[in-house]
C-alpha cells in the first residue's frame, strides 16, 4: 500500500492536525484550531477515498449523510449543561464504530493472518465495545436517565476481575485461531466486553464523573489507534494516539484536583456505601442530584422555609453592600438550578457598584473538565473575572465576602483538617479565609462526599438555603 507520496501526504495531514491542537492554547486560537482539526480529518477522508475507491458509493453516501445530519442537528440543539452527557454519548458512538470495523476485519474471508494485526483487532474490539457500553452508562447517568450515585454490586471487585480474566483468555483464543476467528468465542468475548464497560462505569457517580469521561475519552482514542493497526492505516493510529494522550492528561488533571488516584476512583475505595453517611446517600439517591445533595426540606412546609429566609436575606444584602471585594464560587448546584445567568448578572451588578468581583473556579466544578467555564461563558461572563484555584486561593484572606452558589465539597475545610474523610487532602477553595461567607445552596446537607461542611457552623457564615436561582434573584433585587 505504500509509496513515498502516500507517506508524505499522511504526515502532512498529521501535521495539520497537530497545528490544530497547538492552536488550543488560547481561546481565540481554539476556534480556528477546531476548524483546522476538522479540515485535517476532511483531508484524511479525501485521501482514503482517493486511494481506495468504494465499491458501493450510494450506500456510503447515504450512511454519511444520515450520520452527519443527525450529528449536526443534535449538536445544534443540545444545551450547555447537557454537554457532558452529549460528549459521553458521542464518545460511545465513535467507539462502537471502532468495534464494528475491527469485528468485520476479524471475521472477513480475507482476514489478516499476521499475529500483530489479529492481536490489535481483538484489543480494538474489546476496548471499543467496553468503551461503548461504559459511555452509554455514563451518558445515561449524566442525562439523569439513571441514578447518578454509584451502584455497587455485591462482590463488585471480583466481578470485574472475573470479566477481565474471561476477556484475556478468550482474547488469546481468538487471536491464536486461524482466521476467520471462531465466531462463537468472539461472541462471548463481545458479551464480556459489554459487561466490562457496564460493571466498570456503574460504580462511578456524582463528582467522580469527570474522571470517568476523561478516561473513556482516552480509551476511545486507544480503540481507534488499535483499529488503525489492523487496517494498517497510519492516520488512524496517529489520531487515536493523540486522543489517548489528551484523555490521559485530563484524567490525571481531574484526579489531582481531588487528591485521589485512579484505583481509588475506579475501584470505589472511598465511596462504598459504608463510607458515606447513610442519610446523605439516601437523600442523594432520592433525587439523583449529588451536589448540593437534596434533603428533607423537600417535605417540609414551604412557609417555614420562607419565614426562615427573610432574616438571612437582609443580612446577605447588607454583607454584599458593605463588601469591597467579592469572590463568587460556583458549583454544579448552580447549574442544576439554572442560576448561572442570575449569578453573572449579580457579578456585573456588584462590579457596577464599584466592587472588585472575581469568580473562583475549582477544577472539578461541573461534570466534566472545564465544564464550569462553558456554563459561565454561556451566561456571557466577563472572562477577566475568572480565576483558577491556584491563582485565587492566596487572595481569600483579603476578600470581604465569599459567595458560594451551589458548591459544597470544593469549599469544605474538613478536607484540610479531618484526616479520615473521603475528601481528606483534596485541594479546596479557601472560602473559609474570607471575612464573611454567604452560602446560596439548596440546603445544609453534605455534598457528594457525604462529609459535613463545618463552614456552615461558623459565625461569619450567612446561610441562604433554597433554590439558588430564587436566592440570587432576591439578592439582585435587594441591590437595586
Amino acid at each position, binding site marked *: 500500500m505504500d509509496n513515498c507520496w502516500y507517506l508524505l501526504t499522511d504526515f502532512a495531514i498529521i501535521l495539520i492536525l497537530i497545528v490544530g*491542537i497547538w492552536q488550543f492554547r488560547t481561546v481565540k486560537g481554539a*476556534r480556528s484550531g477546531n476548524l483546522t*482539526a476538522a479540515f485535517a480529518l476532511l483531508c484524511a477522508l479525501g485521501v482514503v477515498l482517493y486511494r481506495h475507491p468504494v465499491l458501493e458509493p450510494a450506500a456510503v453516501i447515504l450512511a454519511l449523510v444520515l450520520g452527519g445530519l443527525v*450529528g449536526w442537528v443534535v449538536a445544534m440543539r443540545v444545551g450547555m449543561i447537557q454537554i457532558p452527557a452529549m460528549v459521553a454519548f458521542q464518545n460511545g458512538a465513535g467507539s462502537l464504530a471502532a468495534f464494528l*470495523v475491527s469485528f468485520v476485519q476479524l471475521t472477513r474471508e480475507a482476514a489478516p493472518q499476521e499475529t500483530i494485526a489479529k492481536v490489535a483487532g481483538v484489543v480494538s474490539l474489546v476496548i471499543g465495545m467496553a468503551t461503548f457500553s461504559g459511555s452509554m452508562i455514563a451518558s445515561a447517568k449524566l442525562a439523569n436517565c439513571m441514578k447518578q450515585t454509584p451502584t455497587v454490586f455485591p462482590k463488585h471487585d471480583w466481578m470485574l476481575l472475573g470479566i477481565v480474566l474471561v476477556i484475556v483468555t478468550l482474547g488469546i483464543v481468538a487471536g491464536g485461531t486461524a482466521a476467520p476467528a471462531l465466531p462463537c468465542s468472539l461472541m462471548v468475548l463481545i458479551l464480556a466486553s459489554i459487561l466490562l464497560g457496564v460493571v466498570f462505569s456503574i460504580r462511578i457517580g456524582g463528582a467522580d464523573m469527570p474522571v470517568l469521561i476523561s478516561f473513556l475519552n482516552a480509551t476511545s482514542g486507544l480503540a481507534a489507534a488499535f483499529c488503525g493497526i489492523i487496517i494498517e492505516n497510519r492516520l488512524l493510529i496517529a489520531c487515536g494516539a*493523540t486522543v489517548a494522550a489528551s484523555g490521559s492528561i485530563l484524567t490525571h488533571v481531574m484526579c489531582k484536583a481531588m487528591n485521589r488516584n485512579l484505583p481509588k476512583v475506579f475501584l470505589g475505595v472511598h465511596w462504598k456505601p459504608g463510607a458515606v453517611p447513610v442519610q446523605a446517600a439516601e437523600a442523594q439517591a432520592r433525587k439523583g442530584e449529588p451536589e448540593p445533595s437534596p434533603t428533607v426540606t423537600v417535605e417540609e412546609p414551604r412557609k417555614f422555609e420562607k419565614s426562615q429566609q427573610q432574616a438571612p436575606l437582609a443580612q446577605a444584602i447588607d454583607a454584599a453592600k458593605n463588601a469591597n471585594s467579592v469572590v463568587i464560587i460556583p458549583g454544579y448546584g448552580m447549574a442544576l438550578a439554572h442560576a448561572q445567568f442570575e449569578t453573572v448578572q449579580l457579578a456585573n451588578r456588584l462590579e457596577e457598584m464599584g466592587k472588585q468581583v472575581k469568580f473562583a473556579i475549582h477544577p472539578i466544578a461541573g461534570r466534566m473538565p*472545564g465544564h464550569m467555564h462553558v456554563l459561565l461563558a454561556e451566561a456571557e461572563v466577563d472572562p477577566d473575572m475568572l480565576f483558577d484555584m491556584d491563582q485565587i486561593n492566596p487572595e481569600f484572606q483579603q476578600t470581604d465576602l465569599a459567595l458560594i452558589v451551589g458548591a459544597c465539597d470544593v469549599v469544605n475545610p474538613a478536607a484540610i483538617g479531618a484526616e479520615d474523610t473521603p475528601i481528606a487532602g483534596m485541594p479546596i477553595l479557601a472560602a473559609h479565609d474570607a471575612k464573611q461567607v454567604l452560602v446560596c445552596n439548596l440546603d445544609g446537607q453534605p455534598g457528594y462526599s457525604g462529609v459535613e461542611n463545618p463552614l456552615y457552623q461558623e459565625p461569619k457564615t450567612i446561610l441562604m438555603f433554597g433554590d439558588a436561582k430564587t436566592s440570587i434573584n432576591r439578592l439582585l433585587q435587594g441591590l437595586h
Partner: protein
Amino acid sequence: MGDVLLMVAVFIFSFLVGYLLISKVPPRLHTPLMSMTNAISAVTILGALLLFAVETNAVQKGLGALAIVMATFNVIGGFAITNRMLKLFKTRE
C-alpha cells in the same frame, strides 16, 4: 516488519507530541478540548470506509454502514458542538 515498526513509531510520536501540546491547554478550554478530541477519535470513519473498498458479504456491509453512521455522527457532532461552545467564549486577547 518494517510496517509494524513504522506504525509503532507513529503511535509513540503522536502520543508524545499530543501530550506535550495538550499539557499547554489552559483549564478553561478543557471541555472544548475534550469535545474536539472526541470528534478526532471518530477517525475510525476511515476504517469504516475502507470496509467498502473490499469484497464483503451483506451482513458485513450492514455493519460497515452502521459504523459509518456512528462515526459520522461523532465527527460532525463533535466538531459542531465544539464550535458552538467556543463561540460562547468572549475574547479580549
